[in-house]
C-alpha cells in the first residue's frame, strides 16, 4: 500500500497536499455553489417570513467502528445533526462539516464516508456549505472524528418543545428501539456477538415533514445517547410530570431483545439514531400514529405511554399483570440493586 492512498499530517498542514485533498477529493462530493466559492465563510441568503425562526445545532461524532451494519460515521454525522433540527420542527437548510482525521486513514475510506454523509444531507434537501479538515498524529484520534452543525427554519405555525407538555398527552415512538446501540455492540469483536443487528441510522425529515401537517404535535426528541429512557426522563423533568409506559407496547426487535437479555441491558437505554419520541395531544394520538405508519420510517411506530401528574418516580413501566416498575434515570452501567 502506498502512502499516496493514506492521509498524512501534510494533508492537514494547509499547503499543497491539503489544497489537493480538498479540491480533488472532498469538495466535489458536496458539489454546491456556496461551498464552491471557497471563502472563509459560507454566505447564506436566508429571508425569514414573519414568525419563522432559525434553528441551529451542533454535534460531534465519534464511533468505533467507523462502518457498522446500517450505517457509518458519515451517515451518523449527517443524520444526527439533521435529526436534531427536525425534531424541533425545523426544515434543514445548511450543514457544516469539520473533520479530525487520524494520520494513516485510507483516502478511499474517507471519500466513501463523506460521500455517504453528502448523500444523506442532500436527501433531506439540505447542503453542506462550510467545513474544516485537520489531520492529527496516530493515536491522537480514532480514525476519524466528525463535527457537524446545522441551520434550519421553523415554520411560523410550528411550536414544539417541552414547554408544551402536559398531563394526559400521549407518547409515540417511531419504531423499534435500541437497534443502533445493539448494532454497535455487535461490532465489538471481543463480545463475539454475531446476529443480524442493523443500526436504525436514518434522517427523520421525510417522516417529520408529514407529522408537522397533523394537529396536536407538542414535542419531539430523537432518542440518541441514553436511548428512549433518557428522553422520557428529560420530558418528565422538564414538564414536572411523570411518564407511564406500557411495557407490551414498546417495540423491540427480537434480535435486540435477545442481545439485551444476554448482556443484561435494557433496550430502552440503548441508543437509536433514527427514532424519535413524540408527545401528542391525547385526541390527536391515533391520527398521528396513522400518519406515521404511512411512512416507511414510521411503519413500526407505537403508542407507548403518556404523561401523568407527577408521582414519586419519573418514569414508570407497567408490565405483565399490570405491575408497575420505576425506571431509574442512571444511564450507562448500573450496579445491580438486587441484594
Amino acid at each position, binding site marked *: 500500500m502506498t502512502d499516496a492512498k493514506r492521509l498524512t499530517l501534510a494533508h492537514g498542514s494547509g499547503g499543497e497536499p491539503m489544497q489537493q485533498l480538498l479540491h480533488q477529493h472532498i469538495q466535489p462530493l458536496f458539489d454546491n455553489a456556496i461551498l464552491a466559492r471557497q471563502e472563509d465563510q459560507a454566505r447564506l441568503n436566508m429571508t425569514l417570513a414573519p414568525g419563522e425562526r432559525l434553528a441551529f445545532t451542533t454535534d460531534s461524532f465519534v464511533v468505533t467502528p467507523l462502518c457498522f451494519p446500517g450505517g457509518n460515521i458519515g451517515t451518523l454525522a449527517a443524520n444526527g445533526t439533521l435529526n436534531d433540527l427536525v425534531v424541533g420542527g425545523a426544515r434543514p437548510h445548511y450543514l457544516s462539516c469539520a473533520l479530525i482525521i487520524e494520520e494513516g486513514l485510507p483516502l478511499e475510506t474517507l471519500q466513501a464516508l463523506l460521500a455517504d454523509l453528502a448523500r444523506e444531507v442532500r436527501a433531506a434537501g439540505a447542503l453542506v456549505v462550510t467545513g474544516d479538515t485537520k489531520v492529527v498524529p496516530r493515536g491522537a484520534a480514532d480514525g476519524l472524528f466528525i463535527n457537524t452543525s446545522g441551520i434550519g427554519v421553523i415554520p411560523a405555525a410550528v411550536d414544539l418543545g417541552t414547554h408544551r407538555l402536559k398531563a394526559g398527552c400521549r407518547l409515540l415512538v417511531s419504531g423499534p428501539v435500541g437497534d443502533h446501540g445493539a448494532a454497535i455492540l455487535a461490532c465489538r469483536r*471481543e463480545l463475539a456477538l454475531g446476529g443480524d443487528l442493523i443500526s436504525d441510522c436514518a434522517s427523520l425529515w421525510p417522516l417529520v415533514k408529514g407529522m408537522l401537517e397533523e394537529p396536536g404535535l407538542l414535542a419531539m426528541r430523537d432518542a440518541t445517547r441514553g436511548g428512549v429512557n433518557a428522553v422520557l426522563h428529560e420530558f418528565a423533568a422538564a414538564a414536572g410530570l411523570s411518564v407511564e409506559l406500557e411495557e407490551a407496547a414498546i417495540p423491540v426487535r427480537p434480535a435486540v431483545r435477545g442481545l439485551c437479555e444476554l*448482556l443484561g441491558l435494557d433496550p430502552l437505554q440503548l441508543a437509536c439514531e433514527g427514532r424519535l419520541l413524540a408527545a401528542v395531544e391525547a385526541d390527536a394520538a391515533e391520527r398521528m400514529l396513522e400518519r406515521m405508519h404511512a411512512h416507511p420510517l414510521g411503519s413500526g411506530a407505537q403508542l407507548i405511554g403518556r404523561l401523568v401528574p407527577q408521582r414519586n418516580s419519573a418514569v414508570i413501566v407497567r408490565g405483565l399483570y399490570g405491575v408497575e*416498575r420505576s425506571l431509574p434515570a442512571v444511564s450507562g452501567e448500573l450496579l*445491580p440493586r438486587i441484594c
Partner: protein
Amino acid sequence: MQQQIAEIRIKGSVQGVGLRPCVWHLAQEMALHGEVCNDGDGLLIRLYPAAAATGFRERLESRLPAQAEVDSISIRHTRCDAAPNGFRIAPSSTTPGTTRIQPDLAICPECQTEIRDRGNRHYRYAFTSCTRCGPRFSIVEGQPYDRERTTMAPFPLCPICSDDFSNPHRRRFHAQAIACPVCGPQLQLLAADGRLLAQQDAIHSAAQRLKAGALLAIKAVGGFHLACDALDSAAIVRLRDFKGRPEKPLAVMLPDLEALQLRCIAAPAELELLTGPAAPIVLLRSRDGHWPGNLCDGLDRIGVMLPGTPLQQLLLSAVGRPLVMTSGNVEGAPPCLDNDEARTLLGPGVDALLLHERVIARRIDDSVVQLAAGQPQILRRARGYAPAALKLGTGFEAADGVLALGGDLKNAPCLLRQGQAIPGAHLGDLANPRILQQLQQSGIDLASLFACRPRLIACDGHRGYHSRSLAQRLAERQQLPLIEVQHHHAHLAACLAEHRRPLDAPPVLGLILDGSGQAPDDSPHPLWGGEILLADYRHCERLDGLPAVAMPGAEQAAREPWRNLLAHLERWSPDWERLRWPSLDALRRQPLATLRGLIREGFNAPPASSCGRLFDAVAALLDIAPQRLSYEGQAAMRLEALAGRASAQPVPALGPPAGPIALDGVWQRLLGGLGSETPERLAYCFHHWLAELLAQRVRALAHTYHCDTLALGGGCLHNRLLLEALQHQLRDSGLMLLAPRQLPAGDGGLALGQAVVAWARERRP
C-alpha cells in the same frame, strides 16, 4: 385548702394493654383516691394520699399486665386544690408525646372460648377482642390510643358493650377495639361481580366454597389474603397463575396445633412462636407426603401459621383443613388494603371475597420467623412485631429524630426516637412505585404517630437505589441533612444496635454475608457481599472478604445462577470444560465466547465479593437452580434444603489457613466430588467448608485486632445451616457472637443500622 398528691408517671408500651384497669383495681384494694389516664407520654396516675405512692408503685410493679413494656415509673409530689374522692379512670389527654403503639395481637384464650360458647353474646362473632387481644397498629389513626382515633370509631358501642367498656370489673374495660354482633363490623361474602352471596352465614358459606376448591380473597388484619385449600394442587395452580407466582413457597394456615403437628415437625420453641401473641408465619419442617408438590417449591420447610383472629379461627374450624394464606396481591405489587381495591384487583382472579367493614389504617403483612441455632430469628418483621420499639445501648439515650429509609429490596424504614428504635413494618421491593409511595407514607406515619419530627435522614449509598432518590427528595424538601451509610456497615450496625452495644464500645469484627451492596468508592471492586469488617457505629474498615468475582450481565447475574457458576469456574478452575456433569454440559451450551468477553472486558460484569452469588453458583453446579430464578433467594434456599437431606457426618477440614480468603480449595473439592459424592453431601460440605474458611480468617483477624466480639449480618445469615456451622467453627474462639434476631439479617434490618450510624456520626461530641 391545698392537698399534697403524688403523680406517678409510667412510660413505655403501656397503652391498650389493660394497665389502667390494673391501676384502678389496685387503687380500690388499697382504698386510695385519685385518677389514672392515658396521655401522649404514657400513663399518668394522680394518687391521694401522696404518702401511699411508693407502696402503690411496688405493688403495681409486681402485677403489670403481660403485654405492658414499662420503661420507667417515676413519682413526684405536687399539690392540688381539693382532695380527690374515689378513684376514676379519666379521659385521655391528647398531647402528642412519647408513648408507644402496640402491635396487633392474636386472639386470647378467653375470647377464643367466648366465640365458641353458644350462650355468649360473642358466639361466632368475627371481631371479638378485649384488653389482651385484637387489632392495634392496624387500626390506629392517631395518638393517644383511644377508640375515636381508630378505624373502630364508626361503630358506636351498644349499651352492653358500652357497659363492658366502662366497668372496671370486666375484661373489656377500656378495650378500645371491642365490638359485638349488635354494634360491630359485619361480614359479607361477595361474588367476583359484586353480588352478595352471604352475610349472616358468610363464614360457613366461604368455608363450603374453599372445601370445593374455590379461590377466595379474605380481608385480614393489615391486608388481604388469597386463600385456597392447601391440599388441593389444582386450586394452588389457579392461585399461582393469578398471582403470577410460579414457584415461590406459599404460606399456609392450619386449624389448630393438632392439625399442625400432623403435617409438620415443630419444636417446643416453635410452638411457642406459633401460639404467641404475634402469631407469625413460622418456617417448620414439613412431614413428607403431607403436602402437594406445588406448594413449597420442593423445599422441606413450609411457612405455617395458626388462626390469629376470631374470623380466621371460625373459618379454619369450618373448613377443617389447611388453607393457603398468601398475601392478597399480584407478585411485585403492594397488597390490597381496602374493599374496593380488593374487588377491582383480586375480584377477577377469585371466586368470592370475604369482606368486612373495619377499615385497615395501614398495611401490615404477616411476619415470618424461624428457629435458627435454637433461637427465634425474625425474617420478615411486620404484623405482631411492628411498631414495637427496641431499646438501644448506653450512649444512645439522646438518639432522636432520625428517619432511615432502608434498602431497595425487602424494604422497611426505621425511626429513632428518644433513645429507642422503632422499625416500621416490611414493605417490599421499591422498584414498584406504589411501594416507594408506601415507604414515603410509612416515614410520615411513624413520625406523626410517635410525635417525632425527623431532623436527619439516612439511606444507602447505592446510586441506583430508589430509596436513595426518595431520601434525597425528602432531605431537600425539608432541608434536613442526609447521611449515606454503606450497605454492609449498616448490616453490621443493625446487629450491634439490636444487641444494645454501647455507642462508645470498642470496634468489633463483622462478618457480613450478603447478596450485594455498593462498596465504598475506594474499594478495589464496586460490589461487596462477603466481607470481614472492623467497625463501630461510626467507622467501618474492610479487613478481608470473599474474593471478587464478576457478575456477567450485572443484575441479570442475580437472576440467573448459572452466570455465577461460569464466573466462579473461570476464576477458580479455568479448565472446567473438560469435566462431564449435567450442569457443566448445560453451561457449555451457553454463548460462552460472549460471556467470557463480558468478564474479560469488564463490560456490564461488575466484580462482586458476594456470598449470595457464591451460593447461586454452587446451587447451579449441583443442578438444583433453575435457569432463571422465579423468586429471590430461590437457589440458596434449595441448596440449604439439599444439604439438609444429607446425613450429618463429619466434614473433612479444608486444611490449614493460609492468609487471605481464597475459594480455589472449595471449588476443587466440589468439582472433584461431583462423581463420587452425592449432591446432598456436597451441598452439606460446602456450607461447612465456607464456614471453616470464614471462621479461620475471623479468628486470625480477631487476634490481630484484639477483638472479642463478632457481629453477623447479611441475608445469607437466614441460612440456618450456615449460621450453625459458623457457630460450630467459632465455638472455642473466645469470640462473643452476635446474630440478628429481632430484625431480619437481610435488607429488612438495614434501616436500623443506617439510623444508628447516621446518628452516631452526626452527634456533636
